[in-house]
């Protein structure tokens, strides 16, 4: 049951209402009841003193891999939902590249049910575009939406068949959901394990060129433009990709796009020494690309920050670079990394960060939340903007520890995560 909660004296930052000031926030029966300079605590209310803390609409991560079903040794829906809550996220969108993949309504229902059972962050299922993620024919998209899918993607298997992508962008318009794409032309990136560039040449590692990503971004933008469908471009990492999206948005194309914390913060140099914990797809790229991703997040070309949380068992990452799988976990470091290295370095101000991590993800995927307007779901993130801490993956709630930020000193971390009026995590 949800309790009655009163969050007192925090700096409430809610761009959906253009609100940035000290307010009390009253949550009753799972909804936001009141946001005002001073709210009298009702009887039986639990009062959380938020003096010195920041109170925002709950953070939403539209791109996580929870690995269940099939790879529960890496993550489960429950452990992922708890990791999300510990990272300050009140909702996540679970990618369908599980084993078996989430390509039918029963599988979607399983993810939704396991998410509810976890009782931590909300878990929204994302379905596959194509049956078995094989890129051949459309999956049961309508029935998956009825079962709770909020988007479709073949993430991990880019849709190489442009005709199928066009069909998906047309068909999904009947259900009002975005088609999310991992933009990568596999014929250009084949065999690659990191960014194609000076570091890959030196290390003798086969590279993935920017062009592999750029070509699919441009293709997807053209298809969205001609069909009128909604394309959501995942983890954009290239300067040409950012510029192409900027131009498409100016033309009115229905496109939303993500940046991930690691592409905002790191470059290909993090791979030096064959560090598998810095191996992901798309790969870390050059400083010039990173600057473009930062500029894209700053001007809203990249409207959403999403982690691409990708758990892997430590055995798999403890391998030669070309044998190690792609991906890093991000749910429990994202807020601290963004506060320290994106907000802290003046790339975004705090309200814009909340816009990119809460308001816009909710709008793009048509999710409840992303606002503290009265009557909205009582999903709230409270964080301490000045707390200093050191990344220690042994303290993660996630089952996996693979990430390149171990030992980093960060400033800012979550204090309370409230979902549906219930405190699901507190420090």
């Amino acid at each position, binding site marked *: 049951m949800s309790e009655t909660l009163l969050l007192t004296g925090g700096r409430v930052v809610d761009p959906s209402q253009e609100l940035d000031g000290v307010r009390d926030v009253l949550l009753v029966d799972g909804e936001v009841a009141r946001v005002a300079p001073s709210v009298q605590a009702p009887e039986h209310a639990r009062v959380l003193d938020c003096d010195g803390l920041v109170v925002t609409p709950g953070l939403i991560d539209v791109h996580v891999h929870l690995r269940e079903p099939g790879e529960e040794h890496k993550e489960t829906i429950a452990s992922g939902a708890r990791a999300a809550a510990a990272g300050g996220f009140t909702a996540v969108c679970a990618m369908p590249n599980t084993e078996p993949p989430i390509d039918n309504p029963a599988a979607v229902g399983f993810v939704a049910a396991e998410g509810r059972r976890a009782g931590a962050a909300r878990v929204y299922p994302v379905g596959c575009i194509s049956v078995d993620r094989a890129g051949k024919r459309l999956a049961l998209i309508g029935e998956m939406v009825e079962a709770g899918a909020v988007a479709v993607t073949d993430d991990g298997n880019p849709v190489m068949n442009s005709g199928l992508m066009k069909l998906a962008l047309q068909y999904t318009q009947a259900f009002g959901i975005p088609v999310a794409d991992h933009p990568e032309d596999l014929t250009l990136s084949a065999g690659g394990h990191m960014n194609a560039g000076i570091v890959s040449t030196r*290390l*003798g590692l086969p590279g993935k060129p920017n062009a592999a990503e750029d070509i699919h971004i441009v293709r997807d933008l053209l298809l969205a433009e001609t069909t009128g469908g909604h394309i959501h471009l995942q983890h954009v990492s290239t300067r040409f990709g950012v510029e192409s999206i900027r131009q498409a948005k100016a033309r009115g194309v229905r496109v939303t796009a993500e940046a991930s914390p690691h592409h905002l913060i790191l470059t290909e140099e993090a791979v030096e020494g*064959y560090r598998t914990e810095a191996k992901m797809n798309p790969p870390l790229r050059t400083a010039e690309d990173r600057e473009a991703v930062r500029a894209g997040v700053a001007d809203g070309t990249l409207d959403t920050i999403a982690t691409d949380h990708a758990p892997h068992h430590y055995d798999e990452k403890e391998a030669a670079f070309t044998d190690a799988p792609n991906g890093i976990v991000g749910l429990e470091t994202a807020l601290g990394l963004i506060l320290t290295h994106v907000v802290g370095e003046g790339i975004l101000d705090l309200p814009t960060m909340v816009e990119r991590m809460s308001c816009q993800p909710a709008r793009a995927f048509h999710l409840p939340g992303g606002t503290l307007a009265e009557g909205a779901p009582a999903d709230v993130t409270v964080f301490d903007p000045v707390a200093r801490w050191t990344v220690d993956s042994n303290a993660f709630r996630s089952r996996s520890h693979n990430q390149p930020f171990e030992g980093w000193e960060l400033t800012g971390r979550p204090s309370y995560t409230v979902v549906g009026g219930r405190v699901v995590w507190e420090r």
Partner: protein
Amino acid sequence: MSETAPSLGKDLVGLESLGREELTAILDTAEPFKEISERRIKKVPVLRGKTIVNLFFEPSTRTRISFEFAEKRLSADTVNISSTGSSVTKGETLVDTARNLEAMRIDMVVMRHGASGAARFLADRIPSNVVNAGDGRHEHPTQGLLDILTIRDNLGTLEGVKVCIVGDVVHSRVARSNIYGLLTLGAEVAVCGPPTLVPGSFRELGVEVFQHVEDAIQWADVLNILRLQLERMEAGYVPSLREYNRIWGVSTERLEKAPHDLLILHPGPMNRGVEIDSDVADGEHSVILDQVTNGVAVRMAVLYLLAGGRPEKAEAAKKGGGPS
């Protein structure tokens, strides 16, 4: 060589991280070791009591044999482990292999592996000395060293010498080790071959890039001609071996147009009639067999130095006694 010649550290993973003094120390140490192989009794007790594992995850004949001779002529106890499949397909991970070796208290591991970075990976995880005998397309440092030693022997210097590496550079660990070592030692380096195998991005390493072997021959003092793997043709990098030979093959006819004689190296094994014509391979400027001889000496030098030997004592070590 100076009394303060630097130590190599624990491992030899690649030439990129070595400075001029370290590279020179290895080359200078190899010189006195050459003579051991000319003796009737080809054995000195420098590494007596040391155990060395030659761990080969990729097929190799000449590199493995060369290391084995180097080890045996230094009186080390050696074990050869060959696995045609990768460690992963075999079921055991590289980290488990490393831990097993550590548990057996091996002094040195010489490893060849198909994955770039595998040597660094192993070196970071075991206390034994690790010598990289080739990791993926990353480095093959002892091959680079023996190529460089052969050039120095024949031309007397490396300073300002123009070396062009011809062939499948992008997939070549030999090319990378040569590039790093030669540039550090003051040589000029170029690479030449079809742009599918020699992308222009190599310029970022500080080398010239030639698309036509005729241009390379005009420019160079030394050609180091790489083997063209048959699988490159199958993967579509070049349309046919015949076309490769016609356009990039090194022939006497092409060499005759050079302004002066060129020294010819090839790390082997050769595809005669593909990347190199027989009359070039067997010609008077070919030092391909010198490379093989030098390979044993260079590997003796590397093993000696990693075991703690001092370059200035190599001459004395030949006569008996351990590395320190």
